[in-house]
């Protein structure tokens, strides 16, 4: 069964028959074709597929199958809603679709997607609708508190620590992972908590290691306290009296600081902070995979476990 095809079909059917007007349907469809989304041809990871594969492993009951696809589609819409807000909050280079919208329309679109997702949870869940909805709201609430804190999580004179970083990651990212597990009613399996945490840490570290080096992301300009920058600042304070902090403070003071950004990025790489994050990311992923394999030992059909692991490791 091709997860991507199934989720796409669900979403296409839903869009076609939804109460949204044609402009809105077109906008949402375009956003779902963006980077990292389910209709993007080469997205290495989508939340919808992840939800689908997780359900395949942890829910062996066949009657759950239709709901599994719906769940994956809803997860895709929910994450799209939160991504739109993230992009607006970070001030990142906007996606071509969002760049044509005013902030008011962008915010309203996100809110609409969120409400539609809640509606779909109630519509598509065969059992325990309110339980599912409450788990989604609980995790989104935690994530939103984390996202709010993230707005001021910056490198200043008193830089956040590594443990602050992991605490915030647990709040803003791992909660979304938990949402996926709980949406698929997997909360009776004690192992899922650790799996969600490890996958969440791994993904956040990998993204942060990549984003600090990219001009299309605002992490460096905004001096976001992601782990690569926290470690590089720690290194600089010990080795050269905090030269990196001085350089960071120069960002945004001239009309073209592309050379400064390049120097800072070279410096961060040379401190070993990127290696550190990438190694930790892989370690956490390996730990999640180990737990999934252990869980899969008791299963009759091992192919779902293999599919999930292959998906996470590709």
């Amino acid at each position, binding site marked *: 069964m091709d997860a991507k095809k199934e989720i796409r079909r669900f979403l296409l059917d839903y869009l076609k028959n939804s109460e949204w007007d044609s402009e809105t349907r077109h906008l949402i469809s375009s956003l779902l074709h963006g980077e990292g989304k389910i209709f993007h041809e080469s997205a290495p990871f989508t939340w919808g597929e992840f939800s689908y594969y997780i359900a395949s492993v942890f829910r062996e009951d066949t009657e759950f199958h239709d709901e599994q696809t719906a769940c994956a589609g809803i997860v895709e819409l929910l994450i799209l809603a939160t991504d739109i807000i993230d992009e607006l909050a970070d001030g990142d280079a906007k996606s071509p679709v969002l760049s044509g919208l005013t902030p008011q329309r962008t915010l309203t679109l996100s809110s609409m997607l969120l409400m539609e997702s809640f509606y779909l949870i109630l519509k598509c869940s065969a059992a325990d609708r309110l339980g599912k909805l409450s788990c989604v709201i609980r995790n989104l609430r935690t994530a939103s508190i984390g996202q709010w804190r993230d707005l001021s999580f910056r490198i200043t004179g008193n830089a956040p620590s*590594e443990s602050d970083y992991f605490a915030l990651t647990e709040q803003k990212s791992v909660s979304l992972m938990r949402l996926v597990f709980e949406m698929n009613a997997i909360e009776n399996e004690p192992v899922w908590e650790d799996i969600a945490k490890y996958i969440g840490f791994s993904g956040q570290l990998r993204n942060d290691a990549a984003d600090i080096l990219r001009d299309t992301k605002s992490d460096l300009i905004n001096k976001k306290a992601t782990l690569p920058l926290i*470690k590089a600042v720690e*290194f600089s304070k010990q*080795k050269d009296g905090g030269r990196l902090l001085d350089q960071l403070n120069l960002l945004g003071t001239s009309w073209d600081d592309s050379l400064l950004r390049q120097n800072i990025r070279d410096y961060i*790489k*040379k*401190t*070993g902070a990127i*290696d*550190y994050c*990438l*190694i*930790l990311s*892989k*370690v956490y992923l*390996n*730990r999640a995979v*180990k737990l999934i394999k252990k869980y899969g030992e008791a299963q009759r059909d091992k192919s779902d476990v293999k599919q999930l692991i292959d998906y996470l490791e590709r």
Partner: protein
Amino acid sequence: MNQKLWDVIQLFSGKEVIGAGEMALARQSLDADVFNVFKEQVEKGIIMKTFNWV
């Protein structure tokens, strides 16, 4: 485990060649699963791009 990994990365910084003795030290310092990933990274040659402060 994280602090130990950071310390080992700093220990290896700027080294052109990583000897067996240094790898043994890393193996001793790190948990087995962390060491395995660290070794993979060293083999890719990524670690050696770091500063040489020695």
